[in-house]
């Protein structure tokens, strides 16, 4: 009887662990939106990526559609090359789409804002390995202040 009780308590212990693991997976880490989903790769070149990091979100109108996979410097023209993996659930973006690096909130982290372009006849959808041509760089605060000082001295 004693060992039955021990087994029962160990069973409760294991159940608790599974509950904790599930809570961490679903509630904390949001495993359902993980990178294990099917995704396709897009590239974009920026002049300046600011504080963008690997794993930063790629958002369309605030909805996360993918993540930044890799950031390197392109060897040919020395501009940052950002690799994004986009969920295949969203594979209807036209080639005229543009991306810009935005900041969430005043001090928040930076993410890629994806602006879908117009789908006119003759414009194909973005597919695996495509480059997005139309990019806007990150807003660097020092540059902004510099421009402001310059223009206020002028006037």
């Amino acid at each position, binding site marked *: 009887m004693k060992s039955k009780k021990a087994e029962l308590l160990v069973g409760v212990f294991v159940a608790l662990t599974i*509950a904790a693991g599930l809570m961490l997976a679903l509630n904390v880490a949001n495993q359902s939106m993980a990178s294990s989903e099917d995704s396709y790769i897009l590239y974009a070149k920026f002049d300046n990526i600011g504080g963008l990091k690997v794993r930063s979100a790629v958002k369309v109108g605030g909805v996360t559609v993918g993540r930044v996979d890799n950031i390197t410097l392109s060897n040919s023209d020395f501009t940052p090359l950002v690799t994004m993996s986009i969920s295949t659930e969203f594979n209807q973006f036209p080639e005229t789409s543009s991306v810009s690096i935005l900041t969430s909130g005043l001090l928040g982290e930076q993410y890629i804002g994806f602006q879908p372009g117009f789908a006119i006849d003759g414009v194909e959808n973005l597919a695996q390995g495509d480059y997005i041509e139309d990019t806007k760089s990150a807003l660097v605060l020092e540059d902004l202040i510099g421009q402001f000082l310059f223009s206020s001295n002028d006037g």
Partner: protein
Amino acid sequence: MKWFINLGANTLNRLEMFGRATFMLFGAIVAKPQPLKMIPLTIKQIHVVGVQSLLIIVVSGLFIGMVMALQGYTILVDYGAEGSLGPMVALSLLRELGPVVTALLFAGRAGSALTAEIGLMKATEQLSSLEMMAVDPLRRVIAPRLWAGIISMPMLALIFSAVGILGGHLVGVDWLGVDSGSYWSIMQATVDWNKDVVNGIIKSIVFAFVITWIATFKGYDSIPTSEGISKATTETVVFSSLAVLGLDFILTALMFGIE
């Protein structure tokens, strides 16, 4: 001259101890597995080592989560960033505090008990009598305890983190008035399953292995007197706490240091 002799003797002693510990580990784990005999024994030990540590783990997890929410809130609210309370609590618990504090508590609660139990078995010659009956004490006594420790500590660490995050929710959201939606959603946006949760679990598995190894070996290797057992128990807690803290730095540097 004397100094060198001392140093040499000390080093040789350490190395010998390490060798004995490795022999014990191999004798207990690598030997031919007998799952039918092992599993009931291991379950009983998980009860002793894991289930009975549950209360202290849950209570300390709850309070650590609550204190972190309280401290974090007072700082974050100055910058209007109290929405980041969730990820702050969750990341510190999952990456560091969960594995490390659980390991320290586990070393104090379960490790010391393991050492004292095995040491007393040795002192009262129960281990020798097992050998007389052709039962290998490494397999019968040490192996179930090793496995039980390695299995239950990561489970305790998971429970610790989950309870701590709920404790942070209790103080941050229910008491201090952080928005519940932003507590969870910013946490979900920040915490990554592979990078944060799995790395925390890997850490706690490493700690569990080191603590139970030290605890069982110190008991098995203790001088079979009351003084010897008390010394072995103290050494278990001291050595395993130091090993956990040192290993934690190395593991953190490996996992999170280099992007």
